[in-house]
């Protein structure tokens, strides 16, 4: 969810608002987020997958390559995987686009009746 903006990276995540936004890139090094709070910012929550320990044990090649990736790309795995090294409940591994901190910030808004949550479901 990051892209280059000049010498630095820009992200679709807005730390101040605690939400994902679209962004317009006008050219190299020049972009701006569109701070429109909508269902667009909730879609990243779909990007999750739980790997069961039975699956990892069944495919040692996959497990070995996954662990290589975690060990050699710690900046990636820390940010993207919950309990990836330690394992979760029952040694499950969670792959998620939004980490725990981001999940909490998004859920605060999603479950707020003054924002997304209505009597008829989630407002778009």
């Amino acid at each position, binding site marked *: *969810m*990051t*892209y*280059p903006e000049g010498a630095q*990276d820009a*992200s*679709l995540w807005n730390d101040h608002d605690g939400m*994902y*936004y*679209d*962004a*317009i*890139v*006008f*050219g190299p090094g020049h*972009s701006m987020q*569109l701070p*429109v709070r*909508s*269902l*667009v*910012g909730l*879609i*990243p*929550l*779909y*990007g*999750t*997958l739980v790997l069961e320990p039975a*699956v990892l044990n*069944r*495919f040692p*090649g*996959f497990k070995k*390559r*996954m662990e*290589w*990736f975690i060990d*050699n*790309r710690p*900046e*990636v*795995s820390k*940010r*993207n995987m919950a309990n990836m090294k330690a394992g979760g409940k029952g040694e499950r591994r969670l*792959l998620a*686009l939004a980490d725990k901190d981001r999940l909490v910030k998004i859920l605060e808004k999603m479950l707020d009746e003054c924002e997304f949550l209505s009597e008829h479901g989630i407002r*778009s």
Partner: protein
Amino acid sequence: MGERISPSLRGCSKSCCLTSRGAPSFFRLLTLTGPLCLFFPRWVNRKDAGGHNVFEGGFLGLDNIGAFNRSEPLPTGGTLRQADGTAWMAFYCLNMLSIALELAKHNPVYEDIASKFFEVSFVIELGNDIEVECL
């Protein structure tokens, strides 16, 4: 797949078939998965103008709540980087990982493919600086 279809819907629906209908036959799942493997790089290559694994374009079902018609060029100029488009691609990738692991129970070739989708899912999240290394 048309331009106005969310990239991951087919992968999602087939992944759901896996869980709701019990285990499909290997060949049935293989038939379903082949086109998905072809569509995946198509979306990666056509909907990432900057080549940074941050995606844009397509209908995605949310144009009616956005500030712009995201299927058309922006009135402001520039290119849109879509949070939902990028998330759909990550979702697509994770579904493909799940399907590949299911297929790998019958054919070990898919274990390598699962590893590739695992790595790509992180490239999508991290964006431009990460290159997947071949092991």
